[in-house]
């Protein structure tokens, strides 16, 4: 007799879904990928294809044969992990290492915790840090950017240190000699480094799209960038010969990629605005400490992973203000 659906309200739903969110983030990363192909040629494209395929295959195999649950391979989240993983490594990384990194990212970083939404750490960063400690030489041998029109699509790139590497090893003076203080080149991406992180303009383009689409909240990246800018700015004012100007810190290394695309990962970041601001401050602070005084030239990955671990605590501490509930006043 009951021919009609009985369900609780609401009976309408926004058209947003997880899949659309993931695909929009992927779309936002396309400009950075195009720039990467322009500077690093075939190697960038090859590596991205390999990690995406390896991540998706790992997830599929685990869901099919270990968990034996529903297959959610087309929700775009594994592909996104693959792209972010590729963006964080040198373009000429041996293929097999990239595959190992992908398996760790998805297998340990994500599926071991129960899959999408349940992982405490950003899977791509888990994979990257695993590779960094397992294959330290390969992971720190950076190809230099060189437009494909000059050197050809398939040509092997010349390797060399990244600006942050030079800064760590040799200091500000050498950095200027090496031509790494041409701000325009830095913004366009004409430098050594992980291929997804080099071009600030392409990353910002994608970030603006995500912010307009309300997929990421500006609070986290803004808090990270401001913290880095102010912190390194103070150091620069104290001793300009030892500490480089703050705007270089913003475009060097993986800060923009991390701030806009990895720290904003919904699963592993706090939910409230105040929580996001504290989270961003933590990432910015740890990044600068590692960059200026740590053993590694770059610290964004570690900073994000450390703050990921604190996210549940931040969520507990910063709950939204409940309507009609007055905070007990301090006496």
């Amino acid at each position, binding site marked *: 007799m*009951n021919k*009609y659906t*009985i369900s609780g309200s609401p*009976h*309408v*739903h926004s058209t947003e879904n997880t899949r659309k969110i993931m695909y929009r983030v992927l779309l936002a990363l396309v400009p950075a990928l195009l720039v990467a192909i322009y500077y690093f040629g075939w190697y960038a494209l090859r590596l991205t294809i390999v990690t995406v395929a390896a991540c998706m295959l790992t997830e599929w195999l685990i869901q099919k044969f270990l968990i034996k649950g529903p297959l959610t391979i087309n929700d775009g989240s594994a592909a996104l992990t693959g792209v972010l993983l590729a963006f964080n490594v040198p373009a000429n990384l041996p293929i097999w290492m990239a595959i190992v990194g992908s398996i760790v990212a998805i297998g340990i970083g994500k599926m071991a915790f129960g899959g999408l939404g349940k992982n405490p750490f950003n899977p791509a960063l888990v994979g990257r840090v695993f590779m960094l400690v397992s294959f330290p030489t390969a992971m720190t041998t950076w190809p230099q950017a060189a437009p494909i029109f000059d050197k050809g699509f398939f040509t092997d790139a010349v390797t060399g240190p990244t600006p942050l590497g030079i800064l760590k090893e040799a200091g500000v003076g050498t950095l200027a000699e090496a031509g790494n203080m041409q701000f325009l080149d830095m913004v366009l991406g004409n430098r050594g480094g992980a291929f997804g992180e080099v071009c600030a303009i392409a990353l910002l383009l994608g970030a603006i799209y995500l912010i307009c689409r309300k997929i990421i909240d500006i609070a986290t990246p803004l808090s990270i960038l401001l913290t880095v800018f102010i912190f390194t700015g103070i150091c620069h004012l104290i001793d300009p010969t030892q500490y480089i100007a703050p705007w270089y810190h913003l475009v060097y290394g993986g800060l923009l990629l991390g701030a806009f695309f990895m720290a904003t990962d*919904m699963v592993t970041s706090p939910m*409230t605005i105040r929580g996001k601001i504290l989270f961003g401050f933590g990432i910015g602070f740890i990044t600068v400490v590692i960059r200026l005084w740590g053993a590694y030239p770059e610290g964004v990955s570690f900073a994000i992973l450390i703050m990921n671990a604190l996210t549940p605590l931040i969520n507990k501490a910063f709950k939204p203000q*409940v309507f009609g509930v007055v905070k007990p006043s301090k006496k």
Partner: protein
Amino acid sequence: MNPIKTFLKGGVHPEENKLSADLPIQDFPMPKQIIVPLGQCLGAPADCIVNKGDHVLTGQLIGTAKGFISANVHSPATGTVAKIDVVMDHTGYYKPAVFIDVEPDQWAEGIIETDKLLTDIKLDSKQIIDKVKECGIVGMGGATFPTHVKLMVPEGKKAEYVIINAAECEPYLTCDYRLLLEKTQEFLMGVKILMKAVNTDKGIIGIETNKMKAIELLDKTINEHKDLYAGIEVQPLKTKYPQGGEKQIIKAITGREVPSGKLPIETGCVVVNVASTYAVYEAVQKNKPLIERIVTVTGKSVKKPGNFRVRFGTPADLLIEAAGGLPEGITDVINGGPMMGKSVSVTNFPCIKGTSGILLMTLNEAQDRRQTNCIRCGRCAMACPMGLQPFLLHKVAKQNNFDETESNHIMDCIECGSCEFTCPANIPLLDYIRYGKAKTGAIIRARNQK
């Protein structure tokens, strides 16, 4: 026009779909038999005072209120009581009802039948409230809380504003909007009566800006009759759901927050719905009890959507028939709007005091999709107009952890559905929150009784 105001915390923007906004109210013909449920309001159902075979007149009392939160029920038609039996109403439960075989209208004694505007308010505050109670007026936005209870300002409190909730933030529904356009003066007199009832000189009508025609018409009418409608103001509100939530509209208009667990009168506001305000006018000035209302019959695939003036007890399937019949592929029949309405399993449920609309939707529109994992995006918390964390309430309610539901303010949830609307993982958040609320509420009541 006053500057636009809004509540700030949370909110969503569902598609408005006000398909029947430009269609005038039509009088719906009386059916052969009407089925009048005795429980038409929040609280206890009325006691039946007629027997099988009795002859009743239109507007005659047939059920008396039982208890404090309850409302009288009057006969919506003239005729003979065929039987007193149960009927499945919109909640899906069988409820006692009076079945009346309809004859041509013959009004009960004392009811003034005129279309002329009666501007002279003869009753005083106490008499108005008694009249509202006698005429069985309830909140006609859907919650059906007895209006006279709202008007009885408790000792030590003062009503500063009468706020008329004309936001009509529910998508699809247009019954209040049409009433504002077609019965403007009667409505404004209703506001005046309410202001007199609670002894205040400030009446504010809150309307969303997607109803500009109503805002302009009300502004114009008030300006033309400055003396008659002194103290009444129109406040445009941003089109944002749930602007018409009682606590949200108070916050938007006065900036005051109803304290958690307290009633709106704490902020000095009495909030009344448009249709109820019109009913107050009819009751106080014409002695006419609440026996009819405007019902919007709508849906994207409905051939002739419309706004009908319907006597209570009219079966909904007749209204659907008048709107061009049941379209192909309808899977959801909803009593009310899409955000807070209740889905029903049959189409022949009787229209009652809280039936603001009948909405027909296909599977595609209702968007029943597969649930995926929570990705902790926090959109539900951003959308919650009460500042709650729906993802957390959902989780702890599912675990039957009622200490956590209580400490996370589950009882403050207004069940607006913004969280579930916005969830990209399609998690039935509100279903679990309702469950948690019911359980937590029972625990709190049991504890208070000790």
